[in-house]
């Protein structure tokens, strides 16, 4: 316990000021002393559900109500009771979505429009398959904080977070068309992909492939390596991809081609988007392919040259067809919105949301047949009942509430 007795830091000084220096070690000795036991009746199950969903312990009254619901056979109802707590939105959902909004996948980022949109869509039971295609965002009601939502800064969301505004409050935290804030046509919006936060993180500089890769990572639960399929035709791989990196084409033929052959045809959808670092805004240039699509175009002039924002899903064939794309959709199109529909309506998208919720609520991966069966069941329910994420949280919390 010696490492608990800080004697020089400012926190130690503050602590000493509060309770006297010599007691610090005594208190520290008690800090980790209490261990939980492994019994789980309805009251314990209610406690766990509340802890996992709201992130905070329930009050006695709420705990009693949830216990009664569970004892009465309505564990899902108990989970919905837990989700009435504001911290389900202000903490659990915020930190659920925060890593999706930056390249480092850090949870330590300020509240932003991407996170806010996720929180709002969950709260209001918005069809979550439109996450990547809707013209939708969530903001604080007019006047609740000083800064209005803006296309060129995050001040509004910074202030919502700093002021601990209750995001469960439907009067204070409301839906808005994303297009009305960002100043782009509604047809150019693509849910969180065209949010300001995602634009800043993934449309900045580069070649816009980052937007696709991180969308795949965050919402299809696969990174590019898992998608590697060298059998696909490489005719849509852009000119900037060297076919002989460092003079060795084996690298291209065994590795690069396997990802780019699928990614580049899909990332064509972003051809008109760019995040302008000078203005701090998302740029949308309909009809004009962003210059970044021609970076290093002499690396392989015989490669694909982007002429518009068309895209094509090559993963509907071959090994990656297991992602389960919707056969009622064409599998090709123009622009980010239709790409978002293609991804959002896939089996992989739905399963990914459920797996992420499972991780957030059960604090682990599905580890056995029972867990996998639960994930499948919850996924099927999610897809067949309007893609309501609260249902997923509730069903998952019940699965992991203990016995």
């Amino acid at each position, binding site marked *: 316990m010696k490492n608990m007795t800080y004697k020089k830091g400012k926190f130690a000084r*503050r602590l000493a000021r509060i309770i006297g220096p010599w007691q610090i070690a005594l208190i520290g000795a008690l800090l980790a002393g209490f261990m*939980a036991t492994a019994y789980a009746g309805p009251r314990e199950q209610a406690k766990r559900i509340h802890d996992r969903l709201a992130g905070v*312990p329930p009050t006695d009254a709420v705990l009693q109500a949830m216990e009664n619901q569970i004892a009465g056979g309505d564990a899902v109802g108990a989970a919905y009771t837990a989700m009435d707590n504001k911290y389900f939105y202000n903490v659990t959902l915020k930190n659920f979505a925060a890593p999706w909004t930056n390249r480092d996948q850090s949870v330590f980022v300020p509240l932003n429009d991407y996170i806010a949109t996720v929180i709002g869509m969950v709260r209001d039971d918005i069809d979550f398959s439109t996450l990547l295609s809707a013209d939708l965002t969530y903001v604080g009601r007019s006047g609740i904080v000083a800064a209005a939502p803006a296309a060129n800064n995050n001040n509004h969301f910074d202030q919502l977070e700093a002021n601990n505004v209750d995001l469960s409050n439907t009067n204070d935290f409301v839906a808005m068309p994303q297009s009305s804030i960002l100043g782009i046509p509604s047809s150019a919006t693509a849910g969180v992909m065209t949010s300001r936060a995602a634009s800043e993180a993934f449309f900045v500089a580069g070649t816009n492939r980052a937007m696709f890769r991180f969308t795949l990572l965050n919402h299809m639960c696969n990174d590019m390596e898992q998608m590697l399929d060298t059998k696909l035709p490489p005719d849509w791989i852009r000119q900037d991809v060297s076919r002989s990196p460092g003079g060795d084409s084996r690298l291209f033929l065994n590795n690069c081609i396997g990802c780019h052959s699928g990614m580049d045809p899909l990332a064509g959808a972003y051809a008109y988007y760019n995040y302008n670092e000078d203005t701090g805004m998302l740029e949308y240039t309909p009809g004009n392919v962003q210059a970044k699509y021609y970076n290093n175009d002499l690396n392989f002039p015989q490669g694909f040259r982007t002429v518009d924002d068309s895209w094509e899903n090559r993963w509907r064939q071959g090994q990656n067809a297991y992602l389960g794309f919707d056969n009622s959709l064409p599998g090709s199109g123009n622009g980010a919105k239709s790409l978002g529909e293609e991804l959002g309506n896939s089996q992989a998208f739905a399963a990914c949301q459920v797996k992420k919720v499972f991780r957030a609520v059960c604090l682990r991966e599905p580890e056995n047949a029972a867990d996998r069966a639960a994930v499948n069941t919850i996924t099927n329910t999610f897809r067949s009942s309007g893609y309501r994420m609260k249902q997923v949280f509730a069903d998952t919390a019940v699965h992991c509430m203990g016995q």
Partner: protein
Amino acid sequence: MKTAKRTATYSPLATGMRVLRATAITVFASAVLAACGGGAATTDNPLTQAPPPGNAPYTGPVARDADVLKFQQEFWSNAKTSDRCGSCHNEVVGQTPMFVRNDDVNLAYDEALTVVNTTQPALSRLVEKVGGGHNCWNTDPSSCAAIMTTWIENWLGSSGGGGRQIILTPPPSTEPGASLNFPADTAAFEATVYPVLVANCAGCHSSESATAQQPYFADPDVGTAYDAAKPKINLDTPANSRMVIRLRSEFHNCWSGDCSADAQAMEDAIAAFAGGISPTTVDPNLVTSKALRLVDGTLAAGGNRYEDAQIALWEFKTGSGAIAYDTSGVDPAIDLNFSGGVTWFGGWGITITDGKAQASTTASAKLYDIIQESGEFSIEAWVVPANVTQEEARIVSYSAGTTQRNFTLQQTLYDYRFQLRTTTTNLNGDPALSTPSADEVLQATLQHVVATYDPINGRRIYVNGSLVTQIDPVPGGTLIDWQREFALVLGNEASGDGLWQGTIRLAAIHRRAMTQEQVMQNFDAGVGERFFMLFDISENIGAAPESSYILFEAAQYDTYAYLFDRPHFITLDGSTPEGIPIRGLRVAMNGAEARVGQTYATLDDTLSASEFGELGQPLSSMGAVLPLEKGPQDDEFFLTFDVLAGNSFSRPADPTLVVTETDRPPSPHVGLRTFDEINATYAEVTLVDPTTPAVDMTYQELRQSLPAVESLNTFLSSHQVAIAQLAIQYCDAMIGTAGSPGPNLAALFPGFDWNDNSEFSNNRDAFVNPLIDRIMGTNIGSQPVRAEVYEELASYQDPTTAVNAEGESLDRPDNLIDRLIAGGSATRSIGKGVCAAMLGNAVTLVQ
């Protein structure tokens, strides 16, 4: 041979942008393509030079016209010397044809025309002879062929008008056949050919040899040896294997003294290896074209480079040995000797991994002599940097060490840099001119880079045809300070401490500063050997035999791949088939479709006369990089189609991945609260507003020191410290001071008097019980036993002598409150301490 073919002027550009211009449709037996159209106009004459000493001065009649004069200047004066063709083919020795006779240059000209192909100089009889080893004046016949080609090109170049022409002739009609392919596993090779190689060739062809000589087909590592041996083995005809020919016909280091027997032993070993391989047979259901090899195609390379001021040229065509020949045709040749890790690159080039290619100072002095006179020059190279991390890595350097140079083109990270010694720079050529770092123009891929200098414009660097440098900040000077004793080095510093890793596919020095147009011309000309390949599909579409083809421009792309570029449908009989569908074109090799790189698999087109241009109907503007298997001499290509005219192939879909999930090791079903959850939890149970400045400030400072993920395994002692600090801050805010008590304090602990200093001695339960219930909850079986918690905080007294059943001492400290009282703390301080102990532990941390 067919009739009524088409003629076009064609510039085979590396970049895919091509310029075509029609000429007359008059050729009878073939489609004729000219290889110089579209190039920039040239103004300089090629460098002429005095013949080497020891040859009799010419005293015969003057050239009768401009063509003969050009012949005399560019070809005859070079070839007539006694160490070259002049040793035999003149009137003194009398060997016919006497194309270098010294008595009458006009007669020599007439004779030379009989052995020169004026449309394709590279196909001249003269080139064929020296290239075949006929009295080549150095050790590499291919370099003699290149030099001879250069002389002929210089002679014919500017008088040719439309440039040299390429004639497309129907290739041999060959059905795709079963093919023996190298197995992936080395076992068979190791059991058959490898022992012969190790026993007899490891003295040189091994990386472990003191006289290591590429290729390392006798390397101790069998995998390395196998890869190196493949290009030298012909599985279909073992006797044609390079390893056998080298022994049988070229008597290369026969080990027994009987080359024939050694060759037979090698052939037998290869035959045994090949005999164990099952041939790959062509799927009879495929719709296929006829087959051909790369080398069956029509040569498309070269000829339209701007070379008039070129004084040194390395094309690296030799492919073996340790010398790269200067084939500029300008004497003396600056031949480069390899040392260290320098290997040949497939499709022409050298790869430098840890060595250099250096010329003698004597030969290098050609640069000094010529450039001192011109006062300007250009360095040109096609390079593939191995990476973008190397610094001060010399690509082309004319220098003596790290501090002395005439010029150097080098790489530093993403930049090309050009150092040049003039009267306005220092002896090391500094300050260097660099490409703009922010633009990252240098990429680890094939690039054309040209560095030019003239006193007016100073230094300039062009990359891929574009000028990428700003105005040279250093004013132009003269080159009078150059040293004649420096050596030209590629890939390193002369002293060996400026290694550049990468591949050089061509390098050249020009005695003039190239213009933008000239740079672009050479960039457009590309690099490496390219072929026009005609895949016969006449039969498939019901056309006349040997009339209808898919035309590709194909090349060996690097050591491991081919590039097939821009397919066209072309007819050699002038016909224009109409309405024929072509879908799903794939390139097949050695009996099977290439497993990767099928760019044209999505092709969907219909033949239509309206789409026909001079090269027929373009099918795609894109290129396909396909893996090399046996090498350009042996790989047999053909095309397959999903649909071609009335023929179709029902291609089975690639199987979908079946993901089988397996059980994971059981993991804890409980975890940690994370940072925001901890903060919110403390706020909830203490009823302290988390935006309270003191609390919020502490939290923001501690936020990233608190647990960030839920896994129990990630919990650190530093987390515990942060938790303690935050807990104490919340408890401080909850209790407050006498003057400013916490806003909810009275409601939380209604029966507790905070102003009574003996309250914890007399009334501790009024504080402890609500505190425990609020933080831990009530009647929750998954929380610690309440009585034990209470005991730790408020009631336990050390029995000092008590022991348990095992006789172990139960001696431990008294409860926390009594210890704090004994320490003399005030009521509020004790309350805060007890609160912090209760708040900052597993009761709230574990969820």
